[in-house]
């Protein structure tokens, strides 16, 4: 199985690896996946409260190259987006951008789930209700 160049690039030079202060009110953390399944993603966003813009995004991922690439790409996409814009990111966007094969679609689903989980964590921390998302179909 050969990886696409974009997956290899993100794997080799991952963007925004790191940790934000999860106790901060302006930081939302999404931790998705499970060690037994072979992939765990942690995606964090730092939101400017006044503008609702995502100022910073960081990730750490346990998983295959496609999972690492999907999370690295997610942080790149999220930076500079508003929360509302971030919510429109769909798993198929990752599949297209990274040219993921069918067997790796679950990595893209995980990345989408991580974004949603981070946003909800931020919302709850700031006294808003968590958004109820429909179960992702491709798992």
């Amino acid at each position, binding site marked *: 199985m050969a*990886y696409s160049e974009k997956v*290899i690039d993100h*794997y080799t030079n*991952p963007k925004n*690896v790191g*940790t934000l202060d999860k106790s901060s009110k302006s930081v939302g953390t999404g*931790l*998705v*996946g*499970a*060690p*037994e*399944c*072979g*992939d*765990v*993603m*942690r995606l964090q966003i730092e939101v400017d409260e006044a503008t609702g813009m995502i100022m910073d995004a960081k990730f*750490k*991922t*346990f*998983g*295959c*190259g496609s*999972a*690492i690439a999907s999370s690295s790409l997610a942080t790149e996409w999220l930076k500079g987006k508003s929360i509302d814009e971030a919510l429109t990111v769909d798993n198929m966007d990752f599949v297209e951008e990274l040219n993921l094969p069918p*067997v790796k679609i*679950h990595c893209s*689903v*995980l990345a989408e*789930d991580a974004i949603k989980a981070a946003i909800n964590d931020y919302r709850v921390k700031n006294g808003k209700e968590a958004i109820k998302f429909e179960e992702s179909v491709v*798992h």
Partner: protein
Amino acid sequence: MLKLPIYLDNNATTPMDPRVLEAMTPYFLEHFGNAASRNHPFGWEAEEAVDYAREQVAKLVGADPKEIIFTSGATEGDNLAIKGVYEMYASKGNHIITATTEHKAVLDTCKHIEKTGGEVTYLQVKRDGLIDLKELEAAIKPTTILIAIMYANNEIGTVQPIRQITAIAKKHGVLFFTDAVQAVGKIPVDVIKDGIDLMAFTAHKMYGPKGIGALYVRRKNPRVKVTAQMDGGGHERGMRSGTLNVPGIVGFGKACELCRLEMEADTKRVSILRDKLETELMKLEEAYINGSTEHRLPHVTNISFKHVEGEGLLMGFNKNIALSSGSACTSASLEPSYVLKALGLGDDLAHSSLRFGLGRFTNEEQIDYTVKAISETVLKLRDMSPLWEMYKEGIDLDSIEWAAH
């Protein structure tokens, strides 16, 4: 000069020894005859070459040449042995005992037999990958006709106590079959001393060509018979029809001869390299060797690097080093290795494993390069792993409710 990529997946297949190819070449070209052609020199030459190769193969495992049945490989050998015994000894019983860590060619053959009315007991293995001899003996019933236990495991290299197993089989009058693909040519295997009744092995795991293997079928004490699984010209004493693959057989014979002559020196050299590789990699934190280190093939090690996922790890160097992982992601099924799970490893450790299979052409320079590349990648990926971060913060990962997907 170090030549890349480095091949450390010798349990999957081995490169051919150039001396084997050299022996085979004439049998593709001038000596192309059919070994069953009795009436002209082309047939005679082919037959003579097959007879000689059969002796070379038999000699490596301490068998009589007449006891060697050539097959297309070990999958066919496994099928022929298990299904062949099941059908031949149907009047005696229908029960087979095997183990959960067997190769798929054995497990799926047993499942097939269950569908046709047979009964199969799958023995669990202990944490070190070995079967429990007491459990084996307790599983034997009056209807048991066959015990099928592999000589050495393909993923972790664990070598089963074959002589003790065959002693139990003999005591109860049950036939013993072993898939010895990983052991023959690597460690001494002797069908007489080991008390084996049937044994499958293959050329391409011992520096011979692909597409040729053998089933040893004992002729004395007891005389064992298997029902043929393919109808045809009645080749190979009626047990395996089909025109003989003469060049393949010649290559197999040569490969066996080389193993017989060079095994001792090869094993000594390769086990030193394996030990070096293992010692260096075990210097990493949270690294675990899977399976017995005491009863193990000399050229194999299987190591889990906790909190790093196997496929992600392989990606760090697989352009330059050929290895396998027990991770789900390297298989089509998305399930991690059933062998590692059978040892009682958690899925997380199974996902984090690498299998190293060294071989005749592995050298120290390659091992040094591999140690460096793997160590660097493990460290890099751990810096990127949320699980590693939690582990370092002292968080119990089992206490977290993971959203399994």
